[in-house]
């Protein structure tokens, strides 16, 4: 056992002396592994980044909110079955809330109507178009987790009286007011004047597709006055217990059927959406990325491994006489095998560490310059890439090292 440890120490010493002596050759060989490891780790950061980005985005939607809507998320093939559904009107929220109040042990907390449309926000010369504008009640504050960077949400009185007040998303406020405070100022939303009473703090975007900061929140009554609600609304229903989403859905379905006056046996003429549906949609995308990533990283690692195998064959050939000498001095097969395996593994490890450092730098640069791209570095990535490096070294170094260990000492000693 101690002999093995001494042999291993000696092998590492020889391996690093060998790498030092053949710097250029070792670096070029390690390059293949570096590329492979960069591919592996970047793929890892991307997948992790998508995961975290996605979970963060879902948290913005609220993981305790069910969405009662005419259409299911993610599109349908039999659209004709949905097109004729009666629209969901904002005041159905009131009816729903009354049912919730009357239900003992209800899983539902509150229903909030949200009507929306795209408008523009204008202040002086500054104008932002395509602002996601919603009309809702004061209960909306119970749904969102976001803080206000300035001001507040409108209260019940303001909401019910349809006062022309508004809350702006962070980006909208920044775009039209720049550095000055928007509180108390009057902006034109869709051409109508509204007094700014609050700004929601920055939330970021949903998967980089939809920004939560590009919005304006109006009292439903004001929204109804200036923009039509005939296209209907969605009802956002907050639930009490996140762990009982399925039960809550069931209760909500029953309540909504009563609100909509549906007869027994009739199919639901509404859909209850939840963020879990997004997850189900994203999983195949993630799997696709992982699969493509696996293929690409596998390919680049394979090329790297061939390089290592080649250089180990060369190394064995060059040092045939040395192998003969070592065998004459008492090196067993195992000793020679380990020596060349360790040499291959060492080059791979150097490549792996360099690749990891490169990925780390890339991730830092990307997260600073392009914060929208979700990348995340993790400790497990370090272990994975080291394990992959070692495995690559062992797999690619084995054939030449095995050959070296089986050399006939007489033949090896005579080799010039």
């Amino acid at each position, binding site marked *: 056992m101690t002999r093995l440890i001494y042999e291993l120490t000696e092998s590492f010493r020889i391996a690093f002396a060998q790498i030092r002596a053949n710097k250029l050759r070792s670096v070029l060989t390690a390059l293949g592994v570096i590329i492979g490891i960069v591919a592996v780790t970047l793929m890892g950061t991307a997948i992790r980044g998508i995961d975290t980005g996605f979970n963060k985005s879902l948290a913005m939607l609220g993981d305790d909110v069910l969405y009662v809507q005419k259409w299911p998320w993610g599109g349908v093939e039999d659209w004709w079955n949905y097109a004729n559904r009666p629209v969901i009107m904002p005041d159905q929220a009131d009816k729903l809330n009354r049912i919730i109040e009357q239900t003992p042990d209800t899983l539902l907390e509150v229903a909030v109507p949200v009507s929306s449309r795209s408008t523009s926000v204008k202040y002086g010369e500054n104008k932002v178009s395509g602002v996601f504008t919603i009309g809702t009640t004061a209960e909306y504050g119970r749904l969102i987790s976001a803080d206000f960077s300035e001001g507040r949400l409108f209260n019940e009185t303001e909401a019910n009286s349809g006062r022309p007040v508004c809350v702006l998303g962070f980006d909208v406020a920044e775009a039209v007011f720049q550095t000055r405070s928007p509180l108390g100022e009057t902006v034109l939303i869709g051409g109508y004047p509204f007094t700014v009473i609050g700004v929601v703090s920055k939330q970021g975007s949903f998967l980089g597709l939809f920004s939560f900061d590009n919005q304006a929140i109006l009292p439903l009554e004001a929204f109804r006055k200036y923009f039509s609600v005939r296209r209907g609304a969605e009802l956002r229903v907050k639930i009490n217990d996140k762990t009982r989403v399925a039960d809550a859905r069931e209760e909500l379905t029953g309540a909504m059927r009563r609100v909509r006056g549906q007869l027994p046996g009739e199919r639901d003429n509404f859909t209850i959406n939840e963020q879990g549906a997004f997850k189900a949609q994203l999983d195949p995308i993630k799997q696709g990325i992982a699969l493509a990533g696996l293929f690409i990283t596998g390919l680049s690692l394979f090329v790297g491994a061939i390089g290592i195998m080649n250089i180990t064959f060369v190394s064995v050939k060059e040092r045939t006489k040395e192998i003969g*000498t070592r065998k004459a001095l008492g090196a067993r097969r195992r000793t020679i095998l380990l020596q060349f395996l360790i040499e291959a593994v060492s080059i791979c490890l150097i490549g792996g560490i360099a690749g990891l450092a490169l990925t780390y730098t890339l991730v830092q640069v990307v997260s600073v310059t392009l914060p929208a791209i979700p990348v995340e570095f993790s400790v497990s990535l370090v272990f994975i890439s080291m394990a992959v490096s070692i495995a690559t070294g062992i797999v690619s170094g084995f054939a030449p090292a095995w050959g070296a260990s089986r050399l006939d000492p007489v033949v090896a*000693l005579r080799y010039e």
Partner: protein
Amino acid sequence: MSPSLAPELAGRTTRPAGPLVIDIAGVTKLYQMGDETIHALRGVSVKIHRNEYLAVMGPSGSGKSTLMNMLGCLDTPTAGRYEFTGKNVATMVDDELADIRNREIGFVFQTFNLLPRSTALANVELPLIYAGHSPAERKAKAIQAMENVGLGARLHHRPNELSGGQRQRVAIARALVNSPSIILADEPTGNLDSKTGVEIMALFEQLYAQGNTLIVVTHEEDIARHARRIVRLRDGLIESDGPVG
């Protein structure tokens, strides 16, 4: 004029032979070279005792190298008996032979065969690593061996910083370091000028006086005459075997 490699025979002592180390009887070795079968050894019998100083001579093709490989446990006979300190070598497998070579045999090669990127000391330590000695023990023994060959001041030089004679001394130190039963030298002066050759042979004489068992394989009569006994090979057979003088 270069000094003669031939030794001064008058007045030199021959140590009494000790117990039997090598016992070869009726050894043959066949090689397959394409369609041809080569009889490198056709039935060789030799006994070598501790404290002997033996030269193996013969022209090329005589089976000299084959016998040397056999004596060094680098190769096993096709037929015949080979016992090394009573152990049957003929039937040993690779790793067993490696252990015998490590513990019992010190090799000295014509081309020195030092590891180019290791220091003299590291080269000498190598057999001790394979023997499983601790680093401290290795260092102490290697330094002692280096001092024994007169290179105590050259421990941390690499082979390319040493002269040919010094390199061969390092190789001899490496052969000695594990206190082997025999030292097997293959043309030890073949790559050296005659003055350095004389020095190396003087070192061998000193090692012999210290109680080592030496086997020198050579084709040079002058070198062979340093030994106390010469075994001459021709065509795979022993032509003569007797004391020098």
